[in-house]
């Protein structure tokens, strides 16, 4: 399944970068995260609660950031296991300056799923991904607004 999204936010790349690098903020932005634990400089252990159509479950696994270019982007490697199937993804995330005050967040990647997720969830995986993507950007806007209000 392809996972792509673009969203313009009122923040500089550096503000966004700091948010994405902060475990607490990240755990508030990524939909479904119930636990996020930093295990290394660029790696995390996570538990995600996700429901896709008839298939839902608790996903455990690793998140790893690779090809990091400060304030420009990185590739997020995801390896999540659950009793309803495994998900494997490599998502390229880019921060593209639009104006001095605006940045576009773009991501592009592929998700491979197995087990029940593949055999029963795949039909609606695309629309589920859209919902998750939308939620991610909504959360991002929300966190940004909170931070801008307190600063």
């Amino acid at each position, binding site marked *: 399944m392809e996972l792509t999204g673009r969203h313009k936010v009122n923040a500089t790349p550096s503000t966004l970068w700091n948010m994405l690098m902060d475990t607490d903020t990240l755990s508030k932005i990524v939909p479904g995260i119930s636990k996020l634990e930093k295990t290394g400089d660029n790696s995390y252990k996570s538990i995600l609660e996700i429901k896709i*159509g*008839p298939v839902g479950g608790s996903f455990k696994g690793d998140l790893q950031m690779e090809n990091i270019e400060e304030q420009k982007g990185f590739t997020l490697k995801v390896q999540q296991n659950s*009793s309803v*199937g*495994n998900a494997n993804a490599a998502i390229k995330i880019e921060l593209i300056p639009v104006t001095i005050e605006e940045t576009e967040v773009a991501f592009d990647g592929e998700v*491979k*799923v*197995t*087990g*029940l997720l*593949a*055999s*029963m969830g*795949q*039909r609606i995986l695309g629309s589920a991904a859209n919902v998750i993507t939308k939620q991610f950007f909504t959360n991002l806007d929300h966190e940004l607004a909170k931070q801008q209000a307190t600063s």
Partner: protein
Amino acid sequence: MSTNNGNGADAPNRFIGKSVKRVEDKRFTTGHGRYTDDIVLPHQTYAAFVRSQYAHAKIVSVNITTAKAMPGVVAIYTGAHVAEVNGVPCGWQVNFKNGTPMKEPKHPLLVTDKARHVGDAIAIVIARSKEEAEDAAQAVEVKYEELPCEIDAFKAAQPGAPLVHDDVPNNICYDWALGNPIDEVNAAMNSASHVTTLEFVNQRLIPNAIEPRCYNASYDRIHDHYTLYTSSQNPHVIRLLMCAFVLGIPEHKVRVVSPDVGGGFGSKIFHYTEEALLTWCSKHIGRPVKWTAERSESFLTDAHGRDHITKAEMGFDNDGKIVALRVKTYANLGAYLSTFGSCVPSYLHGTLMQGLYTTPKINIDVTAVFTHTTAVDAYRGAGRPEATYVLERLMDLAAHEMKVDPVELRFKNFIPPFDGVTQPGYQTQVALQYDSGNYHGVLEKGLQMLGYDDFRKAQKEAAHNGKLLGVGFSTYIEACGIAPSSVVGSLGARAGLFEFGQVRVQPTGKVTVFTGSHSHGQGHETTFAQVVADKLGISMDDVHIVHGDTGKIGFGMGTYGSRSLAVGGTAIVKSIEKIIEKGKKIAAHLLEASADDIDFANGNFTVKGTDKSIPFANIALTAYVPHKYPDDLEPGLDFSSFYDPANFTYPFGCHIAVVEVDKETGKVTLKRFIAVDDVGNIINPMIVEGQIHGGVAQGIGQALFEGAEYDNNGQLTNASYMDYCMPRADDFPMYETATQITPCPHNPLGVKGAGEAGAIGSTPAVVNAVLDALWSGGHEVKDIRMPLTSERVWRAMQN
């Protein structure tokens, strides 16, 4: 249709030919069927499987520590535990064109090194309850190293494709050809004035028996004896394969029981790994162990059907006579050879390429290929629907290309009628000899029912009004009554395909029949009882049919290939003849006459030309209380017979579909479906009609709705009833059915078999009808890939 509940007047053929209501339906419709899952044994345990999530992956490690400590867990076995046990065998050897045997990689009970399809079994978890077994199975940790996979038979056979089995080059199980030498066929094709070429996919189907596969195995330590309850179409075959080829247990130490079985459609013929593994486990844990497939597990592990990629060419002379047929097929076998996986695309497919036509030169070439998918094997029709699809699609397309009527083209090429008695059978170019046929007859009858001339007028008018109406034809033949042992033995079958039937007359004159056929929806308890009651002149209530238990029935080959009545029924008839012959001797003694002078009719033994007569029940009593009895005769009245048919039987027919295609959406509406089938003599017209109805639904299902969809990672993406489109009652019009009767000349009942006809004839009729509708609107479309969803039809119209 008149019905007869068994209390009818005492007259010849009181039951044969009548639509007697099915005696088994009382228990089925009131919830009293007894299926394998209903059987709970003392100290019962339950199994769950850990199955591969990847289509192709190295199994790096399997950690069972956590799972083993979970509540209720009795035992966990992985591939390492059964590495020494043989895999399940293939029942039919097909040879490469160069004569070397096909590649037969091991099909292990549990995998050790790598998984070869999604659903491949990695471990079995046994616990006190099903829920505990499933929980523990989820706690088994499997580390995979994912490997590249291939799901497409053509691509898998190309150099460099990922290998399913390291020792099978290019994934090719065998290449095989049948018919006339290819040079002769090429020459004939080159001489043709018109050649119709068609490339298409006959898609993969999931069999979807309503009862999932279920097994319950137990071991009796005191007697060193196993019992396996299995939802199977052929318990004796399972016992034979499991004992002799997999577990090395002597057959007399094993009883296999197939009680009520909720549908098979072929998918329950095969000896599955779970059957042998559960039997093995039952001895190791000393307790009975049961497994019932989850529905999603059935989708992933029941052997699938069809999956051919085909290029077919048919050459015609100036007159529209077929001069040559050339077919090349890549057949997908899945990851492992299932029990009859090898013979379906070869001997059950290639041998039907003559169809109903006088084609003088035929060559069919098949490459059978392993892929990273679930095993493919026989599914209702098994090879014959694929062959029919090739021929009947070509006929309608050729007629369209040559601008002739598809009906006229068929009449021009039909084999003339022959009865197989006064006229010889028809020798085909592809190894078979048809028994009897009247192919013109079924098409003529179908055209009458359709009102063909009126239809073509209505179609023109509809096109004028912007509506797309279409008609599609399919005139099919199948080889049933599987099968003469000597013939199939010479073609590579590793078992004879005869049948066993025993008739035991009880002292009271009631009759128990033991048959090696197995009923899983066909209604044997009714049809067989009709035959026995008529032949012995007794009431149907006095006949009890026993099937599905190796502990009760001497032997059996089971039910598939539309064989039960033609082969199993004949074995019973042969035993009845022995009963009557012995009864005559007893009667002769009692009536002080010669046995030659005794007639048996209407349940009475009578001295010819006199009114001296003894009823059947008195003879039965005398046989068991032989106070006054011939000196040279044994007591008792109980005979068994094995019947090995002389030839296949060849049912045939004509199916016609009428569809309307919505121009805006591409939606296909099936307006009419006409089926004229000739299945030889008919014992129970209602049951035959029911078989046709069910088969037609499955055939239309293939044309319009069904299809297994794998993604490029080898994941089956529609493994549930939310995602796999099963046909429903409101998708169909009421079928218009009729029969023609051309008796089979080589069995005493004159029957040919009706179980698969519906699924064989119907599919191309529907696809042809959709294309005809599109042609009527000026859309020059050669093929639309099945299933013909609205989207595919709409897209085809846009080009």
